[in-house]
């Protein structure tokens, strides 16, 4: 109820104040959810965000994060088996991902980079033998969902969803 106090010239609104206190509690609950979500890696590296595609022993496997953040440098790891993919594997990355990020570094450096219709191709020189890891470092410069397509040219293709927070 709102109104002047019977004795004191003050506009109190106890009902509004009660509502504010309830919203305050709801706000604190939300803050706690965000805090613990962040702690558990919902917004960055952590159990709720790390993801993997590719069967063990496949020619290509990809470790990535389901959710990224705008301008936060992140990385994706490709595990390439040269016994299946060959010693000059050609990795394709779809344009939808490329259009939302700036690839800052690829370690090791690809031997050749080509631009195709709808994708880019990164060709690596790999010694025959054990599987190798390639890390792609990138920085999102857009936000929203992305259907990320990564694969080996002419064979294995993976597609997964990522979300870039603003």
């Amino acid at each position, binding site marked *: 109820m709102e109104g002047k*106090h019977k*004795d*004191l010239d*003050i*506009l*109190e*609104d*106890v009902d*509004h*104040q009660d509502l*504010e*206190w309830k919203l*305050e509690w709801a*706000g*604190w609950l939300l*803050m706690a959810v965000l805090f613990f979500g962040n702690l558990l890696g919902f917004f960055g590296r952590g159990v709720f965000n790390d993801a993997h595609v590719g069967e063990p022993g496949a020619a290509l496997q990809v470790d990535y994060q389901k959710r990224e953040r705008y*301008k936060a440098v992140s990385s994706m790891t490709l595990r390439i088996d040269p016994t299946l993919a060959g010693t000059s594997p050609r990795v394709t990355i779809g344009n939808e991902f490329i259009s939302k990020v700036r690839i800052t570094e690829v370690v090791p450096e690809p031997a050749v980079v080509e631009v195709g219709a709808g994708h880019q191709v990164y060709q690596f020189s790999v010694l025959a033998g054990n599987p190798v890891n390639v890390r792609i470092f990138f920085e999102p410069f857009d936000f929203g969902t992305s259907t990320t397509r990564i694969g080996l040219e002419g064979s294995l293709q993976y597609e997964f969803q990522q979300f870039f927070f*603003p």
Partner: protein
Amino acid sequence: MDSLLRSLAIFAFLLIMLRLAGQRTLSEMTSFDFVLLLLVSETAQQAMLDMDFSLTTSLLLITALVGVSVVLSILKFRFPRVEKWLDGTALIVVENGQPLRDRMRKARVDEEDIMEAARQLQGLERIEQIKYAVLERGGNITIIPVRDQA
């Protein structure tokens, strides 16, 4: 456009966070609060400006933020409901020497806070000497003492 939207988002978010912190949190700044304020402003600045440190963007954002502040002040003046949501309302926490404990608990004000204000502002010694203690919108406590009957 990007910077403007980010700045407005940060402005709104900080406003909501400060309201969630409650009135008493705003009233007195301790060293901890001061450090927190510095860190928050640093974090907010990075999010607002991104990597754009041009004079033009700074001037545009300052203009936008001050403009928003002016618009909000006009809205508060014209619509009392907006003022209530943005600034909160005053709340009586002691009436005729009796602490209103439910209100004090919800507002996170204890008797010691009230007596400190009573001593500082009015030189009072006991809670019975307080006619009204009001938790103001800014988080400070004002005291109206019992007037001696002639």
